[in-house]
């Protein structure tokens, strides 16, 4: 699924990869792929991550991982960093999710009573990136669907997600709700529907696999 998500990145894009699974997308981009990776704590042009032994103590990404620059990197303050996001210069963000609704609402920052560490930069990424994709397991650890008719959890932003990459499928958010677009190798449309808490449009044509 991570490799599939990586193919979503078109040459020349400015991309922010959220904490967790999305961060791993970078490992699936060719070395000479023309892309600009952005991180909220004030950097464009992120290179490969480093182990603590070789790390620069002053150079982390927003998730706290030690990273490297590439030729042409730039460092800037937090206001400028979110200016990139809010002014429309971020072509794509890939985020994790607790829940995604069939209208593209995203909940990924708070589980009342259980987990409320604050949203960090997640609200602005979800609301203002030109395109928001979600990269997540199809169900949570307890097996509950994350793709739902409506989100029960507090939203990060409404109607923001356009595509979801899971371990089972690639699903688009359309005006008619969730549409199955691609399947993971060995998965059937019925498997995906069973794990999804909302109706799924399934095309008549053969469904590509990844």
């Amino acid at each position, binding site marked *: 699924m991570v490799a599939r998500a990586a193919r979503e990145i078109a*040459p*020349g894009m*400015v991309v922010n990869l959220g904490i967790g699974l999305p961060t791993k997308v*970078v490992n699936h*981009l060719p*070395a*000479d*792929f*023309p*892309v*600009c*990776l*952005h991180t909220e704590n004030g*950097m*464009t*042009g*992120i*290179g490969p991550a480093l182990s603590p032994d070789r790390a620069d103590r002053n150079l982390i990404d927003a998730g706290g991982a030690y990273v490297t*620059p*590439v*030729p*042409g*990197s*730039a*460092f*800037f303050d937090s*206001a*400028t960093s*979110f*200016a*990139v*996001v*809010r*002014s*429309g*210069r971020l072509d794509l963000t890939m985020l994790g999710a607790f829940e995604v609704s069939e209208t593209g609402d995203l909940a990924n920052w708070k589980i009342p009573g259980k987990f409320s560490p604050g949203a960090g930069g997640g609200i602005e990424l979800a609301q*203002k990136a030109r395109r928001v994709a979600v990269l997540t397991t199809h169900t949570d650890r307890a097996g509950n669907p994350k793709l739902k008719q409506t989100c029960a959890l507090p939203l990060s932003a409404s109607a923001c997600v356009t595509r979801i990459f899971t371990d089972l499928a690639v699903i688009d958010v359309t005006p008619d709700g969730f549409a199955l677009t691609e399947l993971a190798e060995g998965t059937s449309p019925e498997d995906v529907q069973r794990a999804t808490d909302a109706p799924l449009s399934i095309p008549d044509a053969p469904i590509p696999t990844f």
Partner: protein
Amino acid sequence: MRLPDKRTSIEAVIAHIKDGDSIMVGGFGVPGTPMTLIRALVAHGARDLTLIKNDANEPGMGIDHLLQSGQVKRLITTHLGLNSHAIGLMNSGALEVEFNAQGILAERIRAGGAGIGAILSDIGIDTELARGKQVVEMNGTPYLVEPALRADVALIHADTADPFGNLAYVATAQNFNPLMAMAAPLVIAEAERVVPLGELDPNTVHTPGVFVDHVTELPEITEDYAVVRR
């Protein structure tokens, strides 16, 4: 990963500009004014332009060429004190002029670049600059709503650039350039030098290339950029 290359010719980038466009132009006096891009815009001929620039340069310099060629309908600025020609156009009604307090023009442009809607400010609240502006109370204190300003195009002058569009300015040629370079969907930068990717220190970049669409190296530093002898 590698960062994309945004080097283009001046003619190719100026061709993007259309009649009726709003255009931010960097510079405060001569320093930081993209003289070569301005000359190319005169040659290109786009009309009915709205220019946003701190000042109108001096007669026969910088954006005065665009005023003289009749390409400018409206000018959003802070003062025209050094350009009697621009004042004449304004007084005759041939040029519509909107004056902003200088720091408020800077903040409105910055707000446009930062993707915020407006700032609340008390600057000029008891002067005629407040006329016609929306007033909002916050905790019982009145503020003027100063809306974010964006443009169709920004024309930027930098000292040094790299192919990705990272820009560095020198001395007081910085002024409005870093703000305008964030506040348009089409940002065109002329640079005195374009150096290979990796030669600009990532810590001393003034405008991250992520905001810049096109970079062009100046073929020469013409007399337009020289010290003014008054």
